[in-house]
């Protein structure tokens, strides 16, 4: 029955406070660099490029001095999915053969080509690389820092009238309230269970009934969210908040040349690995 005791375990960020070059990077440069890297990986279709990205991801992990098991722990539970996905892609993606592709096996509906093999290998690699890179980012940066970094990063968008402050405040409020709602949810589950509630009753095909089992949790949760919103609006207005009005910022960036060189390296590397016409 320990399922009632979970709210304390909720973490949004996974920050591990150790010291390393990566930990010390200015959060806005770090965020931008890692975003570019992740997007580049997502678009990379070549074997060679992915090998480069993979090596680079490992290199970042080493630089951050984080135990590699933290990165691997994200991969382990995904292995069954990866296998299923790979099989699906192998079996059904043969139709997408291009002119340059080679047919390996062609038996009845089964068609395995160099393209489908590449698809399988590359998407698996991409997945591992993104896991590694995104865990370096979240393990080495406290969530608050990430948010401040994002705010500084988006600042130039003010000139195209993008509401940077408001946007970052929304994210801040969202992150701020996750633990609050988690505790509230745990209390609700306990309170309803004390009244004999059971979640997930009925036969498997009774969709409506099974959904209704969640009402004693979901309805109070949303109602509380709206009530909290009412209070918070008042509290913000009392503290002189006016949306869109200019404000000063407590957290200022301290990006130095080191941070910019990191950014340049990471962007340069990403572009190279993504666009360089590797053979094969």
């Amino acid at each position, binding site marked *: 029955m320990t399922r*009632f005791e979970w709210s*304390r*375990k909720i973490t949004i960020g996974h920050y591990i406070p150790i010291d390393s070059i990566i930990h010390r990077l200015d959060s806005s440069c770090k965020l931008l660099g890692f975003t570019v890297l992740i997007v580049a990986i997502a678009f990379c279709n070549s074997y060679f490029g992915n090998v480069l990205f993979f090596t680079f991801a490992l290199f970042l992990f080493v630089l951050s001095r984080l135990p590699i098991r933290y990165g691997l722990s994200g991969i382990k539970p995904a292995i069954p999915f990866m296998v299923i996905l790979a099989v699906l892609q192998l079996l059904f993606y043969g139709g997408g053969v291009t002119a340059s592709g080679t047919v390996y096996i062609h038996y009845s509906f089964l068609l395995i080509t160099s393209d489908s093999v590449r698809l399988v290998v590359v998407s698996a690699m991409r997945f591992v690389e993104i896991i590694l890179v995104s865990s370096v980012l979240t393990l080495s940066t406290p969530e608050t820092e990430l948010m401040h970094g994002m705010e500084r990063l988006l600042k130039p968008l003010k000139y195209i009238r993008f509401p940077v402050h408001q946007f970052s405040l929304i994210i801040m409020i969202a992150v701020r309230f996750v633990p609050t709602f988690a505790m*509230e949810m745990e*209390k*609700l589950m*306990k*309170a309803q269970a*004390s009244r004999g509630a059971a979640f997930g009753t009925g036969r498997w095909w009774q969709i409506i009934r099974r959904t209704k089992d969640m009402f004693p949790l979901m309805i*109070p949760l949303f109602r509380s969210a709206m009530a909290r919103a009412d209070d918070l609006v008042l509290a913000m207005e009392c503290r002189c908040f006016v949306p869109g009005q200019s404000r000063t910022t407590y957290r200022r960036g301290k990006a130095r040349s080191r941070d910019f060189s990191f950014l340049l390296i990471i962007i340069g590397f990403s572009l190279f690995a993504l666009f360089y016409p590797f053979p094969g």
Partner: protein
Amino acid sequence: MAAEPIIDVQHLEHTYMKGTPFVHQALTGVSITVYSGECVAIIGHTGSGKSTLVQHFNGLILPQKGKVIVDGADLSDKKTDMKGLRQKVGLVFQDPESQIFESLVGDEIAYGPFKMGWPIKDVRDAVKGAMEMAGLPFDAMKDRPTAALSGGQKRKVALAGVLALKPKILVLDEPTAGLDPRSGMELLGRLKTLNEQEHLTIVFISHHLEEVAYLADRIYVLDHGKNIGEGSPATLFSNKKMLEKYRIGTPETVDILYRLQDAGFSVNVAHYGIAEVASQICSILEHGPRRDRYDTV
């Protein structure tokens, strides 16, 4: 008072988040006994483990170490019927009105009985009985929308929602917190009636010593997950050292008596009712100081 233990907790320990950096031992060895028909208060400042303790009573938290026996059922036993236990032990959480989710009062209170699978006629009777115990007239209130109730009424609906399961034991976590004093007093009056006339065993957590003095037969004091004191309100309030050491605070009337005692007057701290204090003061004024220097060293 029947001398039959209905809740028996022995050397109970509980640790949250074992094996993580956030490990926290909330209970470090609590032993308490509640007898059938009693009204017991549990006090202690924030973080003393009160809420963790009472959540053991209906099996929301299972004992990690130590023993919890509720109405003859051992909670460490995996075969214990949890559903039956939760029906027997009604747990009212802090701010229970936040758990209301039905749009009509009657449906909200009937939720538990329906979940127990009782026939509709029994459900109706249970709801009717619970509403009357909680001070909600059945015919006038059962079809009211829950959204339109006042704070005090919502709390009564939540209380009725638990009473509808016909529990033998009612456990409340800060029953009057957040209510205005009038609604709070009314609720306490209801609880007293339930205890005295319906013979419901009541265990409640409170920070409010006036409330404890009014309602409880016996008090347990918790500190750092351990019970460090037990007794009637009068014996406990007479123990000034304990009140100070564990930051429990003193009711205002008791505080007056202590101040008089400090000034060297002979007073009886066990008589802390407002009228009692007034008459103690009068007798000091009328019969002279009667400073009893041996009493207060």
